[in-house]
């Protein structure tokens, strides 16, 4: 329900909805300043929690790449965040939320930079049924940046910095906002009753598809697949990777909780509480499932897969964190945990080199989570869910493949062999993450 549609429903359609409609779809309470203030507060708090997920991605990726590429991975994470913020401000936000200013109705939003309310907004001028524009923009911006963070991990250790950042600008300025407008901006996927509460498809699968097309077009790291055998490259720092996974878990409370998009009523705050509990339960389910699965399959638990399992649990519950019971949320997350343990080696079979497991976690668990909505939310239909998944897949695969291929032809997206073997830290940056230790 990550859509300011409520605004539209309340103003234009309140009388069309039966009184028995879901509370989150049609707040019946008269909008008050208190509601405006609390919902704005929700966006600000949830927004900085989602912001912190950028740190989670950075640490997870820094820990899972080899030590010779750590500085570059951190540079990409910081760089992509900066460019995502600019792109979303200049074009993304209004493209995603055009209100009634669609360029092509329900398909292509408005082209204009974001502007805020005047300083010292008067209550009479505020949209009391929702929240301040600044808080809404801030919250939504963080989702957009998270989408780009997903891509960087999959393509680590071999992609050139600048072509990657150019891709990020196009992803966060155009690809993400356009497809997000179809659901959260009130476009044709919203009309088609596609359900995606906080973005298993709209955010995670988009990052996942962009990562998948990038990984295929970029090719695997040198030496990863040799003579039909997979050679694993061990992560450089598992404490950092674990810290990253825990930070992402924390940030997810904002990601899903904030997507309630309202905190002005008893129903809303109780729903946000449900969402927190279910989000947490799904992550726990993912951890336990991945821990047991790796123990059984490989005789020893694999921490890196357990971290992926937690994140896959979180992605799985993101499409519907409100309606499941705690037990059901745990189960949905657990299936996500199993998915990563099965699909990580499967990608290796296809010689698709995903350094941190971004594709299993964000794409495959994202698809699962979007389908799983039908188990607990009676408003969802399998047909609409599949329509949403496939529409977004089609759009993102085409657009991101095009961008990757154009970049590949014009400037090249891959560092040369010597630079890759030496490590991007020394070859591209001349700055090592751990200069006092030997690298490998």
């Amino acid at each position, binding site marked *: 329900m990550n859509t300011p549609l409520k605004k539209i429903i309340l103003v234009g359609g309140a009388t069309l909805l039966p009184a028995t409609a879901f509370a989150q779809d049609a707040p019946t309470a008269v909008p008050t300043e208190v509601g405006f203030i609390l919902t704005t507060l929700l966006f600000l708090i949830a927004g900085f929690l989602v912001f912190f997920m950028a740190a989670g991605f950075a640490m997870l990726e820094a820990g899972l790449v080899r030590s010779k590429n750590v500085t570059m991975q951190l540079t990409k994470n910081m760089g992509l965040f900066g460019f995502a913020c600019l792109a979303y401000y200049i074009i993304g936000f209004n493209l995603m939320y055009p209100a009634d200013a669609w360029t092509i109705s329900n398909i292509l939003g408005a082209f204009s930079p974001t502007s805020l309310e005047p300083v010292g907004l008067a209550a009479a001028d505020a949209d009391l049924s929702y929240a301040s524009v600044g808080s809404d923009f801030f919250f939504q911006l963080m989702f957009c940046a998270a989408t780009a963070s997903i891509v960087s991990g999959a393509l680590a250790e071999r992609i050139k910095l600048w072509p990657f950042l150019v891709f990020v600008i196009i992803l966060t300025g155009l690809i993400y906002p356009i497809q997000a407008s179809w659901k959260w901006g009130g476009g044709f996927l919203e009309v088609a009753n596609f359900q995606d509460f906080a973005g298993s498809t709209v955010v995670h699968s988009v990052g996942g598809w962009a990562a998948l097309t990038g990984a295929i077009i970029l090719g695997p790291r040198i030496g990863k697949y040799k003579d039909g055998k*997979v050679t694993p490259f061990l992560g450089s720092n598992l404490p950092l990777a674990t810290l990253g996974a825990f930070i992402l878990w924390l940030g997810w409370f904002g990601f899903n909780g904030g997507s309630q998009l309202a905190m002005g009523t008893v129903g809303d705050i109780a729903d946000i509480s449900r969402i927190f509990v279910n989000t947490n339960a799904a992550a726990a389910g993912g951890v336990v499932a991945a821990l047991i699965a790796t123990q059984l399959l*490989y*005789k020893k638990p694999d921490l890196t897969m357990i971290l992926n399992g937690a994140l896959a649990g979180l992605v799985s519950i993101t499409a519907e964190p409100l309606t499941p019971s705690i037990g059901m949320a745990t189960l949905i997350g657990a299936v996500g945990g199993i998915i990563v343990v099965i699909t*990580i*080696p499967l990608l*290796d079979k296809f010689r698709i080199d995903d350094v941190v497991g971004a594709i299993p976690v964000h794409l495959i668990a994202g698809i699962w989570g979007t389908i799983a909505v039908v188990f607990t939310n009676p408003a969802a239909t399998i047909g609409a869910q599949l329509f949403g998944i496939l529409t977004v897949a089609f759009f993102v695969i085409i657009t991101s493949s095009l961008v990757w291929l154009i970049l590949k032809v014009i400037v090249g997206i891959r560092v040369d062999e010597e630079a890759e073997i030496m490590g991007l830290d020394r070859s591209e940056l001349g700055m090592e993450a751990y200069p006092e230790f030997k690298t490998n």
Partner: protein
Amino acid sequence: MKLVIATIKPFKLEEVRTALTEIGVKGMMVTEIKGYGVQSGHTEIYRGAEYDVNYVPKIKLEIVVTSDMVDQTVAAIEESAKTGKIGDGKIFVLEVQQAVRVRTGESGEDAI
């Protein structure tokens, strides 16, 4: 003078050091190394992919002793480093031409 080079399992270091101190060995050089011998490597699994660990972590000891101490030293290492399982390590004995204590300029056995 003899140089005794021993590779041992890392967790045995303290036991070996204690045994050598007891028989009067006054110093040693300790290095963390990786290598392989009869034990060869083993396989591990990372993210579902099996890989060979070709080099096993070991501790290398280098000890210079007087010629009359060498048998005792080798015996002490052998006894204290032994677990009876594969990978217990090896001991080599080499001739040492000369030894000098840098601080005093003493040389030969006096420098050990």
